[in-house]
């Protein structure tokens, strides 16, 4: 618990210093007080991951994940813009169910957030016990669970599996 509090304090203090971007004494003092307050109030919510913090390949896979994510995000924007401009508004929406093999909280959060920003899909709910996500899909190509999993999830799941599991 102490380690989590110290980590959280350092993160909050770094964010404060970057946000104010000055090294005056009064700014630093206020930052210290706020960072201590934040680290005591929210340490329970922080997700602990002791076992795999020093495995360097996880960070390399995360660096590989960022450009793929940005490219999907850009494609999503052009897709959305096309659907808006088109005179008929081409939509074929529905909520489908997909499976995921990820188990840890951080990995499922990242997967849900990525699905929300990739073209045509948005996470509506997560069922952690059964390991499935309910995804709102603008252009439903298949209603089958496995086929939808193959199309929507599998590409990111492989990378996230290497990063977080």
């Amino acid at each position, binding site marked *: 618990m102490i380690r989590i509090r110290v980590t959280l304090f350092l993160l909050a203090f770094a964010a404060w210093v970057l946000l*104010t*971007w000055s090294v005056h004494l009064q700014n630093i003092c206020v930052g210290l007080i706020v960072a201590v307050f934040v680290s005591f109030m929210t340490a329970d919510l922080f997700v602990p991951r002791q076992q795999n913090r020093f495995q360097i390949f996880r960070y390399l896979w995360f660096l590989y994940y960022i450009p793929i994510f940005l490219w999907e995000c850009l494609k999503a*924007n052009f897709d959305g813009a096309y659907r808006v401009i088109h005179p008929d508004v081409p939509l074929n929406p*529905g*909520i489908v*169910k997909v499976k995921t093999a990820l188990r840890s909280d951080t990995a499922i959060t990242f997967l849900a*957030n990525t699905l929300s920003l990739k073209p045509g899909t948005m996470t509506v*709910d997560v069922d952690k016990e059964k390991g499935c996500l309910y995804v709102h899909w603008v252009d439903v190509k298949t209603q089958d669970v496995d086929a939808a999993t193959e199309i929507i999830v599998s590409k990111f799941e492989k990378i996230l599996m290497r990063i977080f599991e």
Partner: protein
Amino acid sequence: MNEAIGFGFIVMGIAFDFFGCLGLVRFPDVYNRLHSSIKCVTLGTSSILFGLFLIKGFSAGGVIALLCILFLVLTAPVSAHVLARSAHKFGTKLCKGSVCDKYAEDKDALS
């Protein structure tokens, strides 16, 4: 040079934001509207802030813009997910042309 690229990013961001807001008007129901708003507005606003960073450089405004990009990308999908989930729990129906609703089926099977 940096300023020219920065203004390019800002123009691109404003265009994406405009399409996102247009989607809020044109799409039929709350879920599709969330789609358009969350995607276009996240990348649009991020690229406006990134253009600001390119113009300002590593000064107070530029670094704050970078931090805002980080917070925006982390929090915007979560808010969209919460809005969609609460809308569904409240009982908002999908729009007329919708194909399937597996979430409602599973909820009915449980209760």
